[in-house]
């Protein structure tokens, strides 16, 4: 399960870029979100959590 803390997210796009399954996007309002319908594609690899400079996205196993 992914957990996003939007209040911390600055929409830098790092997680989006390094997600191997293209699960994430930065929305119009500049926040990270799960692309519609893509949640089941997440393989819980933890790349997003490891790289986020703002501790705004976590993988709960």
């Amino acid at each position, binding site marked *: 399960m992914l*957990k996003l803390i939007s*209040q*911390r997210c*600055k*929409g*830098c*796009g*790092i997680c*989006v*870029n*390094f997600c191997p399954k293209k699960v994430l996007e930065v929305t119009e309002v500049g926040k990270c979100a799960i692309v519609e319908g893509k949640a089941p594609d997440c393989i819980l690899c933890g790349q997003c*959590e*490891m*790289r*986020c*400079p*703002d*501790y*705004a996205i*976590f*993988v*709960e196993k």
Partner: protein
Amino acid sequence: MGMEQIAEKYFRPGRLPHIWCPGCGNGIITGAIARAVDQLGLDQNEVAMISGIGCSSRSSGYLDFNTANTLHGRALPIASGVKMANPALKVIVASGDGDCTAIGGNHLIHAARRNIDLTLVVYNNSIYGMTGGQYSPMTPKGSKATTAPYMTIEPSFNLLELARAAGATFVARATTYHVPQMVDAIAKGIRHKGFAIVECVSACPINFGRQNKAGAPAKMMEWQRDHAVMVAAWEKMPAEKKAEAQAAGKFPIGVLYETDAVQEYTEAYDGVIERARR
């Protein structure tokens, strides 16, 4: 522990989001310091974190250790004082490339020369970020800066060779792309008894990236991925290939040098105390 729990445990309550710009590497390095302390299982009260001035030096205000955000370039002398007063503390120093190699350059070589047991984490984003993008001694030659609109003409320091030549007994490098390696290098640096320096190659997407058309933060991290070479592979390279790699801007990461053959400073100072008491 996952990063969520680490942020919860090691960051002061209510301080997040931090002040750094979107995609700034400072958050990754500060997170790596917290991860390293967690990996070592240290009590937060046993850890002191001293920083100088600059964007990266804000880090000490976020982490819940014994902390002090001090003067520009002067983190090392203050950290040395802390260590002298209480050698049982694990003292981590956070310093930017400008803070550490320009105004603080003299303190750097002398802290290294003394082999005092500090762990210096250099947030190297190749620029003075906080003041708007002036070049530092770590800015690669041929970069643009607000103080070099026609590009810098000076070679940059090889910081780790400088530190090693001055007497540092643990020398490592990582990048903000290589997070596990960074955590490992910082943890090993903290464990090392003596002067440890960990250069963290980082990105300032705003004040370095924009002027140098380096692209989005992720692009700057891809540059790190494509230019860092693991030390084992680096050492195996024949001289010619290494020179080629260096010319292409590549650099080794990992623990580059470590020795325990030199006496640590506070330990040597115990001898002074003893002699004075006799």
